[in-house]
């Protein structure tokens, strides 16, 4: 048995961004689902049900946007575990080897639990895909938001997106991405749990307190 030592891995900005993302995505998904398929909840016309739901969606949207952008910034200034390098494992041959190794473990082709202190290679690659989708969600969200004010700066910044999407295609994309995030969340919690159990590396507690236990060698 390898001796484990406790190590500080996830710095404060990483953890804050993670939990802001978590909260924002939950709020955005719930409110977004209502925006997409509302029920008649207003008992009389003086209520403001959809108004509030949209308002909450937009407040959470700003929080989410700031959080996503700060995390990307931190990938360039933070410690090595949170560095952008961890998210593009396919760029190096070692990274590619590690991705394969993790893939073999996940698909039961190998019994060797791939221990890494930060993210495992496959997880890192997944997160960069997820972050790309986050950016698409933010961009489509703001493009749709800006439609109420066609002369605004926001519309000028996002208007070009309508060259890529039809107006309805943009809504469909924004809507479908929500479901991909739900699927991702299921995968994400499960994998973290799995690693926690199998690696005994404190993946779960790590994201709360920042510390993970790692084999002494490292």
């Amino acid at each position: 048995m390898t001796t484990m030592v406790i190590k500080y891995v996830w710095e404060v900005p990483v953890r804050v961004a993670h939990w802001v993302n978590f909260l924002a995505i939950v709020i955005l998904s719930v409110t977004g689902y209502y925006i997409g398929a509302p029920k008649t909840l207003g008992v009389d016309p003086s209520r403001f049900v959809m108004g509030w739901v949209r308002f909450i969606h937009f407040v959470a949207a700003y929080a989410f946007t700031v959080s996503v952008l700060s995390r990307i910034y931190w990938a360039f200034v933070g410690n090595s575990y949170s560095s952008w390098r961890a998210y593009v494992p396919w760029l190096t041959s070692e990274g590619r080897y590690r991705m394969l190794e993790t893939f073999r473990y996940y698909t039961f082709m190998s019994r060797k639990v791939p221990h890494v202190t930060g993210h495992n290679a496959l997880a890192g690659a997944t997160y960069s895909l997820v972050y790309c989708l986050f950016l698409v969600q933010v961009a489509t969200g703001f493009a749709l938001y800006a439609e109420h004010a066609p002369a605004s700066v926001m519309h000028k910044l996002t208007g070009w997106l309508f060259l890529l999407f039809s107006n309805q295609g943009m809504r469909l994309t924004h809507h479908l991405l929500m479901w991909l995030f739900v699927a991702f969340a299921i995968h994400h919690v499960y994998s973290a749990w799995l690693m926690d159990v199998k690696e005994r590396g404190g993946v779960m507690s790590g994201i709360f307190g920042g510390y993970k236990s790692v084999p002494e060698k490292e």
Partner: protein
Amino acid sequence: MGKKRVGGKGDSTEQKIKRDFVERSIWEEKGISRRDFMKFCSAMSAALALPVTFAPRIAEALDQVKRPTLVWLEFQDCAGNTEALLRASSPTVTELVLDVLSIDYHETIMAAAGHQAEAALAKVLKEQKGKYIVVVEGSIPLKDNGVYCCIGGRSALDIAREVCGNAFATIAVGSCASFGGLPAAAPNPTGAVGVKEAVPNARVINLPGCPLNPDNLTATVVHYLTFNKLPTTDSLGRPLFAYGKRIHDACERRPHFDAGQYVESWGDHGHKKGFCLYKMGCKGPETFHNCPTQRYNEKTSWPVAAGHGCAGCSEPQFWDTMTPFYKRLPNVPGFGIESTADKIGAGIAVATAAAFAAHGVVSALRKGDDQSGKKED
């Protein structure tokens, strides 16, 4: 209208009185009182989103008989825009504005026919080069050398290149002339496009809508007569005074949208009460047009007021992108007709959960996973 506003800058009171009460303008000769005329001018300044103080300027411009030439071309269309323009139950000021113009060629309403008609057009082209205005209704087919729409033995493309290319400006009326419209709907068998795409060098202003609101055409013409230039447009070439705002943001049902009161099915309680048509597929949130304020048929009504969702007819390719008209979102491409985004999305989520649950069971039962391999590297 105050008398003072009507007069030109240096006019004496006497002159103003003369202008207002004594002189008979062309309008009065046509049986329109000065009062109605001024009302029309303020309505036009409102339509153009100008302050009311512009009304006298508009009045002055319209009082001078300039009679710029107007040519009206019809290509792949249903003549619905002509219909909208001629819809009036009684002669209106709108129609008379078109009398201020000299309509030298209009296939549907002109008396001349055949070679005589074509000769009239040729005359305009020769004598008014760069000065006349063209209104185009209908799309222009490009496929197979444009054989799908020929007039007098010439293809629509050929005619449009010559007539629009030599005009002062082209006003594309309706969604077909603006963006290809219904003839351009997938699979677009004739290769139909709008005027700007067919004749890129022409100066085109788009007035989409199915049909266009004739008030917007009148306002565009009035703008030209008053300021001698075309109104400013958005990136799709649509004048901002008419297409600068979303239907959803000016809709009379919007308070119900914000309150959370929706029509859930046709004829239900909410529908009778005039609730928001969002769930019935209203495309007001994605459509830029002044329908809620300008309305159709002499400001009588518009689709949402009549209880039907907006179909998004003033947006490019609306027939392809705004359908299904009675659902909020389009179908997901590549899946069956009835697959909504939510069905597919929930399917993905459930499948993911199931896959990981199965994975979890296997992992829990599996013994002997460890990191010993780690020591090797």
